[in-house]
C-alpha cells in the first residue's frame, strides 16, 4: 500500500462525516494507505478568508503543507475548495519572493515551507495511483444501467495550468470513475456550470442551479454525482430553495462519488448516511439484494 497524507478540511469531517467514512473505507481497497495529518487547520477556504488577506491565506495553507512535508508524503484532499487552496499555494510558493515572505511568518512558529509535498484531489489521486481498472476490480455490485449525471464543479480542473488534471473543456476523469462502478454517465447540457456557492448574490446561484437541474432532469439521470461537499450542499439543501423559487420539482439526489464507490464495493446503504440527505438516492437500493453485500 502506498501512503498519502489525508487533508480532510472542515466541511466534510464536520458536516458530512459519511463522506469521510466512505473515503476511509474505499481507498485501502485500492491500495492507498491513509495517513492522518496532526494539527491541520482549515485549508483556509479559497472564498472567504482568501478574500480578506491573500498573504495570511497562503501562510496558513503553507503551514498545512509543512505537516505533510514533515512526514515526507504527498497530500490528498477530499474537497474541491481545499484542493484549490492547497494546489494554488503549492504553485504560488514556487515564486522565491512570495515563499520568502511566507517563510518569514512560518519562522515565528518554527516551521519552514519547502515545497516538497504535492497536492491532489482524491479523485485525481485514485486515477493516478490506483487507476480505473483497480476501481472496477474493487466493485462487488456494479451499478449496472444506473444513469448518472456528473457535476465536475470548478476546482478539480481549474485553473487548468495549476491543476493539470484534465481538459476543462472536455474532461473525462469523472465519467471514467462512474463507468468503473458500472453506472452510465450521461452528459447534460449545463455540465460545465458552477454550483454558485461562492457568489454573494441571491439571483445568480438560483438561476444557475435552476438551469443546471433542468438539464439534468432532461437527460433522466437518477443521481447527480459530484466530488465536492460545497457543491453537495448547494444541490441538496439548495435544491429545495430552487424548487420552491421556480415552483419546479426535480428530485435529483446529489451523491458524493466515494459514497457511491463504497456502496458498489458492498457497504450497506444504511451505513452510508444517505438518511441525512434531503434528496435520498433511494434508487440505489435496487442493487441491495445483490448477494455480494458485505457485512461491515
Amino acid at each position: 500500500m502506498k501512503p498519502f497524507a489525508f487533508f480532510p478540511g472542515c466541511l466534510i469531517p464536520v458536516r458530512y462525516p459519511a463522506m469521510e467514512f466512505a473515503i476511509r473505507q474505499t481507498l485501502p481497497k485500492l491500495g492507498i494507505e491513509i495517513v492522518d495529518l496532526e494539527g491541520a487547520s482549515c485549508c483556509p477556504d479559497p472564498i472567504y478568508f482568501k478574500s480578506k488577506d491573500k498573504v495570511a491565506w497562503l501562510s496558513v495553507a503553507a503551514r498545512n503543507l509543512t505537516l505533510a512535508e514533515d512526514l515526507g508524503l504527498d497530500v490528498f484532499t477530499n474537497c474541491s475548495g481545499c484542493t484549490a487552496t492547497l494546489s494554488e499555494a503549492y504553485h504560488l510558493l514556487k515564486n522565491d519572493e512570495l515563499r520568502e515572505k511566507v517563510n518569514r511568518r512560518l519562522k515565528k512558529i518554527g516551521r519552514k515551507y519547502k515545497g516538497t509535498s504535492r497536492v491532489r484531489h482524491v479523485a485525481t489521486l485514485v486515477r493516478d495511483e490506483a487507476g480505473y481498472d483497480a476501481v472496477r476490480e474493487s466493485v462487488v455490485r456494479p451499478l449496472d444501467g444506473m444513469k448518472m449525471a456528473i457535476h465536475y464543479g470548478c476546482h478539480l480542473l481549474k485553473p487548468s495550468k495549476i491543476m493539470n488534471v484534465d481538459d476543462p473543456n472536455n474532461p473525462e476523469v469523472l465519467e471514467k470513475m462512474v463507468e468503473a462502478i458500472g453506472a452510465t454517465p450521461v452528459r447534460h447540457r449545463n455540465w460545465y456550470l458552477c454550483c454558485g456557492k461562492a457568489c454573494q448574490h441571491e439571483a445568480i446561484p438560483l438561476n444557475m442551479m435552476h438551469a443546471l437541474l433542468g438539464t439534468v432532469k432532461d437527460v433522466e439521470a437518477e443521481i447527480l454525482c459530484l466530488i465536492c461537499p460545497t457543491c453537495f450542499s448547494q444541490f441538496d439543501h439548495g435544491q429545495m430553495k430552487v424548487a420552491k423559487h421556480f415552483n419546479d420539482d426535480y428530485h435529483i439526489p446529489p451523491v458524493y462519488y466515494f459514497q457511491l464507490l463504497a456502496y458498489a464495493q458492498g457497504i450497506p446503504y444504511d451505513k452510508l448516511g444517505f438518511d441525512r440527505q434531503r434528496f435520498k438516492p433511494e434508487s440505489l437500493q435496487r442493487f441491495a439484494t445483490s448477494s455480494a453485500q458485505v457485512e461491515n
Partner: protein
Amino acid sequence: MTKARKPNNDDVVKVDFDFRRQLAKKVEGNLASFCYQCGACVGDCPAATYSDEFNPREIMLKVLYGLGEELLVENSVLWQCTNCYNCAERCPQDVKPVEVIISLKNMLADLNIYPPTVEKIIGTFEKTGRTTPLSPAVDRQRERFGLPPMKPVPMDEISKLLEPASDEEDDAE
C-alpha cells in the same frame, strides 16, 4: 450600475495611480495591467450570464482607469463573482480576472468592508481555525460512522501566521 467612464474632451478620466499601486501590492493584483479589453473572459462567466450588473472585462477596465471608488464600496459588484476560474481559462493575456477580483476584495477588507455572511465565516476561522463551527452534535454524528471526535486546531500557531512578520515588507508603505 455606472459604466466605466470613457475619456472625452469634457470628461477626461484621471487615473488614480495610487489605487493601482495599492492593488499591485496584493498577490497577483498587478495582472490587470496586461488586459487589452478583448472580452474573452465574459462569454463563459456565469455571473455575467445570470446578472446584468457583472462583467469581468468591465471590472478590469475600471481597474485600468483607476476607478477604485466604483469598486471599493459596500455591496460591491465584486461579490457576484462565483470564483469559477472560467475567465482565467479564457484570457489570452493570463490576466486571471478572478485573482484581480479577489485582490480587490483584499482592498475592501483593508477598508473593513465585508458582506455579513463573509465576515461571519472569516470570524469563525480566525477564532477556531476552521470555517465550519464545531458542536457536540458533530462528534455524535462522527461516532455513528466510527470516526474519532474532532481535534482542536493549534490556534497559537495560526494566530501568529495571520500577522505580518516583524521583518516583512510593509504592504501599506
